[in-house]
């Protein structure tokens, strides 16, 4: 049934239908609507779940780690400062191989205080062993959250479902929210690979000396390597029931494109419009939307960008002293390919500044009109 929902409630509806058993979270704008809705579901009996109202994000992640180790399907949500505070436990969750799902609302980090859209918070967690999926609209958020459970529980790795602050978390859109029995067909009850149990005692997270630690880390990478194939299977099954699929990347007008713009999140929606306008002016421009960031879809990046003339990456994030983070990763994926295209990196939209069609068009024209990037990163839309 189609409902008009804000992005936050696309998350909470999916969590409800996923029959999550233990949740824990700490409020931070703009994540609050997600946890408020779920608190209500727990209070009014809509969900049979425990919601642990802990005293910090550090404890929220620790609580879902405890719950997941006990064999429960779990959920948490956070943003920005809260995600940064969780950092220690993000490593813990993945290395403990727990299929925890977290909604992460992309928000700028302080100082100065800024509650608006910025991707640096989630991208700064890229090395923590979490699968990261970036969403474009409310339906994408809903679908991705459900798919995340299947994916996480298949590979025993946690998944971060990432959505833009306000542009997505607080924007109302029609979202198809299916009935419980359809969701049940897609997502069976959790059957944990590990589950602490007094009838079969074992120890989790024991000291790991140099003789075993490397193998444990290698196993995480092996699980990551399985993700693309399993994600595609999950998507096929999802499509068979719900008729929708997204892919780790999406190609838009890429076939004959000379310049391909790489975008993520809600900026992709704006870019669709810009591309179609530029196309009607005869410009050979395409867009590659990146949904999956971890594991990084290196093969798909090579396949889609390896032989285009120029790549323009739109980063709404920044790694100080280096460059935009998506641009870094795309350069790294392409550099071992013969004759790879120049990768132009653009920084825009930090701290909630609008990424308008004009800005995206400017990025296109700058790329088209330069043979090589003037800089590793070009900041677009800076005030004089």
């Amino acid at each position, binding site marked *: 049934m189609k409902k008009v929902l804000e992005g936050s409630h696309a998350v909470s509806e999916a969590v409800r239908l996923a029959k999550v058993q233990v949740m824990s979270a700490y409020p931070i704008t703009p994540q609050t609507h997600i946890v408020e809705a779920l608190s209500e579901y727990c209070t009014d009996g809509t969900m049979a779940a425990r919601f642990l109202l802990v005293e910090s994000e550090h404890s929220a992640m620790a609580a879902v780690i405890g719950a*997941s180790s006990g064999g429960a399907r779990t959920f948490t949500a956070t943003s920005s400062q809260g995600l940064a505070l969780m950092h220690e436990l993000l490593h813990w969750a993945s290395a403990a191989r727990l299929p925890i799902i977290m909604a992460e609302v992309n928000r700028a980090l302080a100082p100065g205080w800024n509650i608006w859209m910025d991707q640096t918070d989630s991208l700064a967690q890229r090395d923590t062993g979490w699968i990261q999926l970036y969403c474009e609209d409310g339906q994408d958020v809903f679908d991705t959250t459900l798919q995340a459970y299947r994916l996480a529980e298949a590979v025993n790795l946690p998944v971060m479902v990432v959505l833009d602050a306000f542009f997505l978390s607080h924007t109302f859109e029609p979202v198809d929210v299916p009935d419980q029995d359809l969701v049940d067909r897609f997502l069976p009850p959790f059957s944990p690979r590990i589950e602490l149990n007094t009838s079969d005692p074992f*120890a989790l997270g024991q000291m790991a000396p140099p003789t075993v630690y490397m193998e444990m880390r290698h196993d995480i990478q092996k699980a990551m390597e399985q993700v693309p194939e399993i994600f595609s299977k999950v998507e096929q099954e999802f499509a068979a029931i719900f008729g929708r699929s997204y892919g780790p990347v999406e190609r838009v007008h890429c076939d004959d494109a000379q310049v391909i713009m790489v975008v993520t999140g809600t900026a992709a929606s704006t870019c669709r419009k810009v591309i179609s306008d530029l196309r009607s002016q005869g410009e050979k421009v395409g867009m590659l939307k990146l949904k999956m960031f971890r594991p990084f879809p290196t093969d798909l990046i090579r396949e889609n960008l390896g032989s285009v003339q120029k790549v323009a990456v739109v980063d709404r994030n920044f790694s100080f002293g280096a460059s935009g983070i998506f641009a870094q990763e795309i350069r790294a994926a392409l550099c071992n390919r013969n004759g790879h295209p120049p990768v132009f990196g653009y920084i825009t939209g930090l701290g909630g500044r609008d990424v308008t069609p004009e800005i995206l068009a400017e990025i296109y024209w700058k790329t088209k009109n330069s043979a090589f990037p003037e800089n590793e990163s070009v900041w677009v839309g800076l005030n004089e």
Partner: protein
Amino acid sequence: MTQLNIPDSEYMYSGHVGCPGCGAAIAMKFALKALGEKTIMVIPACCWGVIAGPYPQSSLKVPILQTAFATAGAAASGLKAALDMKGDTETTVVAWAGDGGTFDIGIQALSGAVERNEDFIYVCYDNEAYMNTGVQRSSATPFGARTTTTPGKGWKKNRKKNMVEILAAHRIPYAATANIAFPEDLIQKFVKARQMKGGTRFLHVFASCPTGWRIPSEMSVKIARLAVQSNIFPLYEVKDGIDYTLNYKGDRPVMDYLKIQGRFKHLNHKDIEQIQSMVDEDWKLLLRKMNHNQRG
């Protein structure tokens, strides 16, 4: 010789890697006799994280969840919630943390859990410093003690934090102190805590550390006993944060306890007098709470 009334059941294997005379290991051995096999131990970073054994071994016959240093209270809450959701009402979840993991870095998660009145037992085995990392001071390190971060003349000049009182202020259903040198009392308190269910129970267990205290390992239990006998570590229970019961009255001077430990060796007569008056003051304060209770 008097026969101690201690269960034969054993849930700890021999051959663990704790130092000889380790009070923390003794504490676990006795605690599990009271808790039994339907127990899951949640252990944050601390000496016990090592004593529990390296992967794939375990020194315990009950399941263990090792967790990050600050998180015992939160991880135990989450685990208990999962057991609730699975309909397991039998298993006792026990957070087992050191004094650093309780008094310092873990106090926030512990306070949160107690405020929510989560249904588990939180045990702080207190060896009065960060032993796992090489004997650095914690807020449980007593006035007068030398540690590697309070060395030489910089011996600790601050008082030890009173954790049981902090928890009593939360109106925790049950908080009690225990000591490895009083195993029957300890076991009885663990049994009481296990049977209570429905809210948070806190046990503060004094656990001597030969390595960190610079005492001979064979003196470990004797020194732990002296802490009670000199009223430095009184044995008492608090129900609902108001109902105090004293389990033991000591009459030995603190001198007897301090003079046999390397960590206090540097203290002069005046320092020891100061400690004696601090202990007397704390003791009086505690007795006032007992009296208050008796008057109802």
